[in-house]
């Protein structure tokens, strides 16, 4: 590293400071990684080993029994089918909610910046206000709304809730991106004969790929991890994974199966991790390629 970059002073004191710096960084890494390590190692132990050994020791004998149980036979309330069906509930709910809210946010952002109309700023401010409304505030009105539409307790209801609640954020993201896109591009396209939707689909969306990825990561993480809307607006079979996880951990009677709890928690958290790893990589590539000034 010393061959490139900024010239640094070399001295004993300076070296000491560097060592100190890396020691502090190492400490923080340790603190942040420890819970994950404990979770993974616990999930790979047998119940007997957990009871006898130390909490932070590594497993003597690696076993995936707990993962299997968490996936397919752990009891959620009275049903003992594991977390699997609830994972599918989450997928079926999250995918449409993310896609619809991202798409609508993109159109909103585009219309608010590139087809300025009277009151566009007021509308944007009102939508932005939505980003600051806490979940709890909308619970009751939303429950009434879902009841009115006959969507109470269903996955569709939850899709609607997350789409509406997410619009404030997705609109904000896309508006901030499109406001930086040169108006000249839209004007050129208008002269080229393209209208509102052709310009949106053929020119604006391809340019917005990095923003789309950021929005998808954000929406996916938030909606997948949501617990409050999930527990409030779904019942039993239609519960998302987060609610099921809570029920696995909280409702086990008799012996506390820490290894199963840990495995279930990791399973429930994997999809967001996966989306971040896959999409995040793409996001970095998207940023560096095809970025054109003006």
């Amino acid at each position, binding site marked *: 590293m010393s061959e490139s970059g900024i010239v640094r002073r070399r001295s004993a004191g300076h070296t000491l400071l560097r060592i100190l710096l890396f020691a502090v960084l190492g400490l923080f890494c340790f603190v942040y990684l420890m819970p994950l390590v404990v979770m993974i190692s616990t999930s790979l132990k047998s119940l007997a080993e957990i009871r006898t050994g130390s909490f932070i020791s590594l497993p003597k004998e690696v076993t995936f029994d707990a993962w299997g149980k968490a996936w397919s036979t752990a009891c959620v309330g009275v049903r003992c089918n594991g977390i699997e069906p609830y994972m599918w509930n989450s997928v079926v709910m999250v995918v449409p909610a993310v896609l619809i809210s991202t798409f609508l946010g993109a159109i909103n952002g585009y219309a608010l910046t590139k087809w300025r109309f009277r009151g566009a700023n007021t509308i944007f401010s009102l939508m932005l206000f939505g980003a600051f409304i806490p979940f709890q505030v909308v619970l009751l009105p939303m429950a009434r709304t879902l009841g009115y539409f006959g969507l109470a307790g269903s996955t569709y209801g939850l899709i609607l809730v997350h789409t509406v609640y997410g619009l404030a954020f997705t609109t904000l993201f896309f508006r901030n991106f499109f406001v930086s896109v*040169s108006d*000249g*591009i839209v*004007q*050129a*396209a*208008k*002269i*080229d*004969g*393209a209208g509102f939707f*052709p310009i949106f689909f*053929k*020119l604006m969306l*391809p*340019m917005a790929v990095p923003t789309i990825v950021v929005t998808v990561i954000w929406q996916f993480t938030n909606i997948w991890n949501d617990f409050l809307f999930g527990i409030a607006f779904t019942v039993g079979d239609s519960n998302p994974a987060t609610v099921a996880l809570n029920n696995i951990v909280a409702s086990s009677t008799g012996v506390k199966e820490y290894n199963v709890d840990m495995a279930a928690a990791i399973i429930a958290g994997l999809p967001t991790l996966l989306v971040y790893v896959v999409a995040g990589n793409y996001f970095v590539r998207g940023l560096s390629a*095809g*970025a*054109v000034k*003006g």
Partner: protein
Amino acid sequence: MAAVKLDKVWKKFGQNDVIKGIDLEIESGEFVVLVGPSGCGKSTLLNLIAGLETLTSGDIQIGKQRVNDVPPKDRNIAMVFQSYALYPTKSVHKNITFGMETRNIPRDEQERAVGEVTQLLHIEQLLERKPGQLSGGQRQRVAMGRALVRKPDVFLFDEPLSNLDAKLRIEMRTEIKKLHQRLGKTTVYVTHDQVEAMTLASRIAVMDNGHIRQYGPPSEIYEDPTDLFVASFMGSPSMNIVRGRLVENGGVTVRVTDEEGSIDFPLPAEAAGKVTGRIGQEVVLGLRPEIITHPGAHAAGSNVFMFKRTVDVIEPTGPDTMLVFTLGGSEAIGRVRPDEVVEAGKPYGFQVNMDKAKVFDPESGKSL
């Protein structure tokens, strides 16, 4: 090809009048340059012609059609933007064909048009690249290609060269002029660069604050400006503006007084005839730098006049040397040949060609 006619065009943004009743007639095949300082409304006027802004009042005609309510895509115009406005996610080829695609023009016809245009602009080898991989000059060419391929009635250019470096700007300027000579399309070109305006235009409209101050061929704008604004905006270095008083001194003269004494600039008969009624009044004398020279530089028979002033600064430019001196309390510039022996701080005998001197009313700024 089509003529463009603006009739009492007004544009307001909220409470702000940006364009204040402009009449402008552009003949078919003409190259008209709208020039003026930033904020004078020239780009807005272009956008009005393009249909990217809606008129507040007045009429715009392209060809025989009144286009007030015709959207940009149906005006048969093409526009080149200052920022190029290329579609960043599309290849050069797709950038050029986008307009034809939205108009559902058959593919083989598209290809033929692309072939023609790319050959004309020498961008054949760039077709598969994205705009981000092009240099400024290449982007400029592609932007022009996208405009040309439409075979429009009217070309609109919005400061197309202002993002290029000086050398490229001059190259592209020549290129644009060649292109216009070759295609003969009606062109409206916006710039704040008066050199671009002079070199390109068949007629120049000098704009200021939402009005057109003067509209005419470059030579007329330069030689016969209607007012002080046009006179000082066009030309580089700009015209020397000197305050003086009209007096009788063996003919009508403009007396300029300062610390170094007073000088009576004699007006030639024609100019004198126009101001005889104003003897004793203040006027503004306009002398372009190139008419204040070393002795003997003017054509025989010109009304030349000699005066002395102390040279403050000497600025060699290569082909000429600029001499900065003080005249009538304000800074003035004369232009002499580079091998002229001059010393800063010493008086120098300038010769001025009074045939080309202009006299303006100090109140209204109008040419007298």
